[in-house]
């Protein structure tokens, strides 16, 4: 990755890897290598291969197969908050 230095509404799709730093504030492991199962379609893959859209409210992470929302990450003054309601489960790397 090099950069996504553009106004928020102009930013195109990114990969899950782009959220590695932000998610390191929430998870003790490298979240981009964690395995996520989509609650909608059952697709199961590492987080790095999911699709990320940066929006004004935060980062929206979608299933690369069915595009259902897996996670939403919102940055708040007291730290990022992760909603994972679209993930059936998350497994730490090497688990």
């Amino acid at each position, binding site marked *: 990755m090099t950069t996504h230095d*553009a106004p928020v509404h102009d930013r195109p*799709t990114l990969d899950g890897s782009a959220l590695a*730093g932000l998610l390191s504030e929430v998870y003790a492991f*490298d979240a*981009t*290598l964690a395995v996520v199962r989509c609650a909608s379609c059952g697709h199961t893959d590492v987080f*790095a291969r999911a699709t990320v859209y940066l929006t004004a409210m935060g980062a929206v992470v979608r299933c690369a197969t069915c595009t259902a929302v897996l996670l939403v990450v919102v940055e708040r003054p007291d730290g990022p908050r992760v909603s994972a309601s679209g993930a059936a489960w998350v497994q730490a790397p090497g688990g």
Partner: protein
Amino acid sequence: MSWHVATVVGARPLTGTARALTLSAPGFAGALPGQHVDLRLTAPDGYQATRAYSLARAGHDERVDLVVDEVPGGEVSPYLVHDARPGDQLEIRGPLGGYFVWHDDDPAPVLLVAGGSGVVPFLAMLRARRSAGQQPGRHAPFRLVCSVRAPGDAIEREEIDAPDPGLQARWVYTRQAPPGWPTPPGRITTADLTAPGFGPDDGTSVFVCGPTGFVEAAAGLLTGLGHPPGRVRTERFGGA
């Protein structure tokens, strides 16, 4: 992962829009080729902007080598390309991301496909391969395909083209080719991505990095050639 204060210690122009930056970053260690850092700037009024940048070199502890390509109108890259001076301080967090990584103990063939400044993480991989010593990766066949608009947009071309056994580089010009170039300017094709020893049956690891549109087009060509989607790793960025 915590933020480190980093100090600019070197800057070198590479193209009309790209610049190499070297930072001294006490406490920063253990980067692998392909990883990135988050870089944070803080304005006098407290406003903060964070962007992700690939490392151009791995394994140099407490030193961070970046290549930044300017995104016109961006909040961070114009400062880094035009204004940052030795002695300036900023913050970095990393190294980050274990997915888009080449390991120097892996002897499998590697196909690297770069659009524009998407070549930066591949510089880290080439440099790691050159310094891999006795590791099996020192002899891993590498093919690097770099797509750029025009000759003047090529980042570190001299280094990439320097003879190195087992490494082949191919340049693709999309708008303007050098005088006498054998093919007219055009987008990357399956011919650029096909070479003996780098096919799907050779156990090739494929990495693609560039603007979103480029990455999606190249990844589509690669899976069309039969590369399993699980062996095609992509990293996209904006500013196309």
